């Protein structure tokens, strides 16, 4: 047991078996979390070459904020100390490319974030709301007359993908190239026969990203890609392979996570129709706190790996330089010391200091995108299909929650209604013109006002 002021008996002498990549971890998440938190909120597991597992809220908080002793570095070229970045174990393909600034330490990491912040701040994101609403409207219109929708395939995959591409400065009609590549690479287990298809999808996405970088270097157009090709990182222009890693991070962060949050929230609301109706009725008072509660409970990105960069003692445990650590945001979010009745959803929860966007200097840079897109999608679902019910038989969760706690499919039914506008393809053509003509993808320092969309 750990207490506030005593140093742990060496947890390495009492290791736990922790493997978050197994389906059992998903099924037993609540029990595993309770067991770890009550017995060893900082545990040592022999899996994947041996690593620490932090599950207690206080422990995760203190560790995550100890940037002076923790490194995110992924030293893919063996130029520094050989650290392996934020995934445990590191996936084979990550050996080739560093995972953007999430696998960097300051000051490099800080330069990237400073470059991108003016595109991703709350003020920057609020400019995009009319476009987000219009994409969600078109997605719903594609299905509204039939009374059937797959909330993942037909809505929650589409809106985050289109918005992310628009913000990057990539034509939004290309969302299909990026969409399946981004999701399949997360939900396909490493040993699956489907891996060959995933590799092909990834190659197509990588080729389009490389082409986009070259195009924008030649003929600048506003967006995140433009910001990155013009950025000075440590006084130098970043090389293309590093930029590809950063862009892949933005896509990975922008696509699958918001989809996962939205799908899980809609599934829960369908299972609790009285709560669904209450959220719709009292949305002005409830939508913000309900969003934070869905974030806490479903933590789309369940954790991050780190490497200790020095011998240290944190939260009562001694660590050695080079040791690996898994910070479980998802488990920290269920700590009864901080969250009363942590395994229930309370849409009005107070004091909800969840860590679903991470803690410390690596706080999810897209958190404002995620919240905004989630709220706008859910609002339109509540408005236009208020009696929706998801089909539990057709709902398909990711087999494991080691990387993302997501869903592949979530079919639902509702009372049909009338269309209110154009379908998705036509809408995306219109919106591309709006993005280009109004230069929506400029940073908030250059362009202040919201998108203007005539319908």
């Amino acid at each position: 047991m750990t207490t506030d002021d005593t140093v742990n008996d060496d947890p390495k002498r009492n290791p736990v078996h922790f493997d978050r990549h197994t389906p059992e971890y998903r099924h037993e998440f609540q029990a595993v979390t309770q067991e770890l938190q009550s017995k060893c909120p900082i545990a040592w597991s022999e899996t994947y070459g041996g690593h620490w597992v932090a599950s207690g809220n206080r422990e995760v908080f203190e560790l995550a904020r100890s940037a002076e002793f923790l490194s995110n570095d992924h030293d893919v070229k063996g130029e520094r100390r050989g650290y392996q970045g934020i995934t445990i174990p590191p996936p084979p393909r990550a050996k080739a490319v560093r995972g953007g600034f999430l696998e960097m330490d300051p000051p490099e990491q800080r330069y990237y974030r400073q470059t991108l912040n003016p595109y991703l701040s709350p003020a920057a994101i609020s400019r995009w709301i009319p476009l987000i609403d219009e994409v969600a409207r078109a997605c719903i219109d594609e299905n509204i007359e039939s009374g059937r929708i797959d909330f993942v395939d037909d809505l929650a995959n589409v809106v985050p993908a289109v918005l992310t591409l628009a913000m990057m400065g990539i034509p939004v009609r290309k969302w299909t190239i990026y969409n399946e590549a981004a999701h399949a690479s997360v939900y396909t287990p490493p040993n699956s026969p489907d891996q060959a298809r995933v590799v092909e999808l990834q190659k197509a996405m990588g080729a389009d990203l490389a082409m986009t970088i070259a195009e924008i270097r030649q003929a600048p157009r506003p967006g995140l890609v433009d910001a990155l090709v013009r950025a000075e990182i440590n006084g130098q222009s970043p090389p293309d392979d590093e930029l590809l890693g950063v862009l892949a991070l933005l896509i990975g962060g922008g696509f699958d996570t918001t989809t996962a949050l939205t799908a899980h929230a809609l599934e829960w609301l369908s299972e609790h129709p009285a709560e669904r109706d209450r959220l719709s009725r009292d949305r002005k008072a409830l939508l913000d706190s309900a969003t934070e509660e869905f974030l806490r409970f479903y933590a789309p990105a369940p954790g991050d790996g780190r490497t200790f960069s020095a011998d240290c003692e944190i939260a009562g445990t001694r660590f050695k330089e080079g040791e690996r650590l898994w910070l479980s945001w998802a488990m920290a979010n269920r700590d009864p010391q901080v969250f009363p009745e942590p395994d229930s959803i309370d849409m009005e929860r107070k004091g909800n200091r969840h860590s679903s966007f991470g803690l410390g200097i690596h706080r999810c840079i897209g958190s404002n995108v995620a919240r905004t897109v989630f709220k706008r999608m859910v609002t339109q679902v509540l408005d236009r299909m208020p009696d929706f019910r998801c089909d539990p038989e057709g709902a398909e969760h990711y087999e494991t929650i080691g990387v993302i706690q997501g869903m592949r499919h979530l079919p639902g039914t509702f009372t049909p209604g009338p269309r209110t506008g154009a379908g998705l393809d036509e809408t995306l053509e219109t919106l591309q013109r709006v993005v280009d003509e109004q230069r929506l993808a400029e940073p908030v320092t250059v362009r202040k006002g919201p998108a203007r969309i005539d319908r």
Partner: protein
Amino acid sequence: MKVRVDPERCQGHTLCAMRAPDIFELSEIDGHSSVIKEEVSDDQQDEAVEAVRSCPERAIFIS
């Protein structure tokens, strides 16, 4: 009641301004928080306390 945001701790989670928009404002550039007015009026005290309790980085202090 006085309220203060530690700029070294704040990472721009934005929850304080969501809970207490009359007390906190967010940087247009990176969403980091600062207080609009250090002195919190009596009718805003509950909001200020809730902002403190909601901050993931524990960056807000009241005195």
